[in-house]
């Protein structure tokens, strides 16, 4: 693949590696995308799978990539950007990663994230701050903010992320790169630290649609180690030209995002795609249903962190019970505690029907409405987030406002369908991303639509981005 060929050289000699490390160091002093970066770390987990994927000829052979630090890679730490897991050595490698390694790709580092994937800014990380490569006063988005920032700055051609409610697509949109959340279960979750099991999956942030497609095709497939993994079964059907569903009555969007959304609709029409206006009346119930389910699952999944077998242990504890409580008090940040508390609350006896079960039924309504929308169109075009990358602190969005803004992304997680965020334009020096959604297994439609769009509006790079050093 043409775009990747210059990346193949960067790990090929010690001289090339030095140039690589130099470029990364320069950017990292400004953006802090990585929690760990080491192009020399021997990829201990890289054991060929023994199938017919020849590594030498594979287009990913020798290509560096990064993984969000909630995805296990042997030889690296696995911190989830939490004090709870600081210094934890990853005992094994995630299936998604080992499939890429079997194709010859090389992990060069682990990227920063919101603690345990809980946040939209990467600011809830307890272990480092990541800034947006387009404007350091702004957040890179989250929770896969480090992965998106690293790709946007040209530090890696792709980086793995995880998407529970938008955690790949929103930072991709904030940083002006491509972000794919695959169909639920198509990429194995083995080796992804669990947050909300029924919603999340591993996906990829990439410099182009072609790279996203290649990585997706290499990672996907049934995995005996993840019983919720499924075979990729695309229908292979799609209209040509694609029929695109768009939202009619838009509200609560910033001027920038609304402007880009309207322009994009005009553009895809000019590109020959058919545009149909649709309404999603369940959209306003997405966020409450999503946070009820996500926090409920989080409260169960994070119960395993108790400071006994691994993870943070307090300096002193009188008895085991105190050890567990103090470990969790000292180990978890406030956003994580909030979600555990909420999740425990909605699962308490007496409250379950009112919250958790109701949310699961609302989830059915959301799935049904989306399924019926897809009977008339091949893909949907939606905003990713109501605003471009926001500033840190008081000028930005409060944690509650950030949650309300997840409506466009969390829809795909509740329904299990794939979504691809793509750079749709740059306004006042900041990228604005939009997303295509497709029915389950129809990722190819997303790639096709985004590729067509990129022919008219190519992705731009932030100031300071360079590909010269690897030519």
């Amino acid at each position, binding site marked *: 693949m043409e775009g990747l060929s210059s990346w193949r050289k960067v790990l090929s000699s010690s001289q090339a590696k030095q140039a690589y490390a130099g470029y990364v160091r320069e950017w990292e002093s400004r953006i802090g995308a990585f929690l760990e970066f080491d192009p020399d770390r021997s990829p201990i987990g890289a054991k060929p799978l023994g199938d017919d994927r020849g590594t030498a000829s594979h287009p990913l052979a020798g290509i560096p990539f990064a993984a969000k630090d909630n995805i296990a890679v042997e030889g690296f730490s696995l911190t989830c950007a939490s004090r709870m897991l600081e210094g934890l050595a990853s005992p094994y490698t995630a299936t998604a990663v080992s499939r890429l390694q079997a194709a010859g790709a090389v992990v060069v580092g682990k990227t920063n994230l919101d603690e345990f994937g809980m946040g939209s800014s990467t600011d809830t990380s307890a272990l480092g701050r990541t800034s947006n490569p387009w404007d350091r006063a702004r957040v890179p988005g989250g929770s896969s903010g480090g992965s998106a920032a690293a790709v946007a700055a040209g530090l890696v051609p792709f980086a793995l992320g995880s998407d529970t409610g938008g955690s790949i697509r929103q930072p991709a949109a904030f940083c002006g790169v491509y972000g794919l959340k695959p169909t639920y279960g198509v990429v194995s979750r083995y080796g992804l630290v669990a947050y909300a099991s029924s919603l999340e999956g591993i996906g990829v942030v990439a410099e182009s649609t072609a790279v996203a497609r290649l990585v997706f095709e290499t990672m996907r497939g049934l995995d005996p180690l993840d019983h919720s993994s499924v075979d990729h079964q695309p229908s292979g059907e799609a209209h040509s030209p694609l029929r695109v569903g768009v939202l009619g009555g838009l509200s609560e969007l910033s001027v920038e995002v609304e402007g880009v959304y309207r322009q994009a609709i005009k553009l895809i029409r000019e590109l020959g795609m058919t545009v149909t206006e649709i309404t999603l009346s369940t959209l306003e119930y997405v966020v409450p249903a999503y946070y009820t389910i996500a926090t409920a699952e989080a409260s169960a999944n994070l119960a395993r962190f108790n400071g006994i077998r691994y993870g943070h242990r307090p300096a002193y504890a009188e008895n085991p019970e105190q050890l567990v409580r103090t470990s969790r008090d000292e180990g978890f940040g406030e956003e994580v505690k909030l979600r555990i508390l909420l999740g425990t609350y909605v699962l308490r006896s007496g409250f379950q029907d009112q919250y958790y079960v109701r949310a699961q039924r609302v989830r059915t309504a959301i799935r049904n409405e989306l399924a019926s929308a897809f009977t008339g169109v091949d893909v949907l075009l939606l905003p990713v987030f109501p605003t471009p990358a926001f500033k840190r602190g008081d000028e930005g969005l409060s944690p509650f406002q950030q949650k*309300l803004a997840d409506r466009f992304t969390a829809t795909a997680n509740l329904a299990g369908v794939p979504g691809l965020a793509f750079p749709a334009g740059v306004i*006042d020096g900041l990228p604005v991303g939009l997303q295509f959604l497709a029915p389950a297994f129809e990722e190819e439609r997303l790639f096709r639509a985004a590729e067509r769009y990129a022919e008219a509006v190519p992705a731009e790079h932030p100031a300071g981005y360079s590909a010269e050093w690897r030519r």
Partner: protein
Amino acid sequence: MDRVNLSLQRSLTREGGVGNLPEVDKKELYTTASLAQLELSEQEAERLAAAVGQMLEYFSKMREIDVEGLEPTTHALLKTNRLREDIVVESALADVLLENAPEREDRFIVIPNVL
């Protein structure tokens, strides 16, 4: 807040006007925290009570939508349990996992006295 138009700002803040946050009962909060094995400091409890209350109030929006006759969705695509074959496979993880234990004696993990 630059770049964000006013209507967005209004709509996003509408349920979270400062100073008038719905709070979850403190006693309920401590009961929930205890179930979740979380220790909360006084200050933390203060902040979290407000944040939990705000979210719960927002969750009540789900009452508006008619879900009569709809089955709950637990997994979007998973229809049945897929079981693997019951066969013996090798796993050499035990030692690596033990190395991550905070305190250890030989192959035992040490915790404070239970009794």
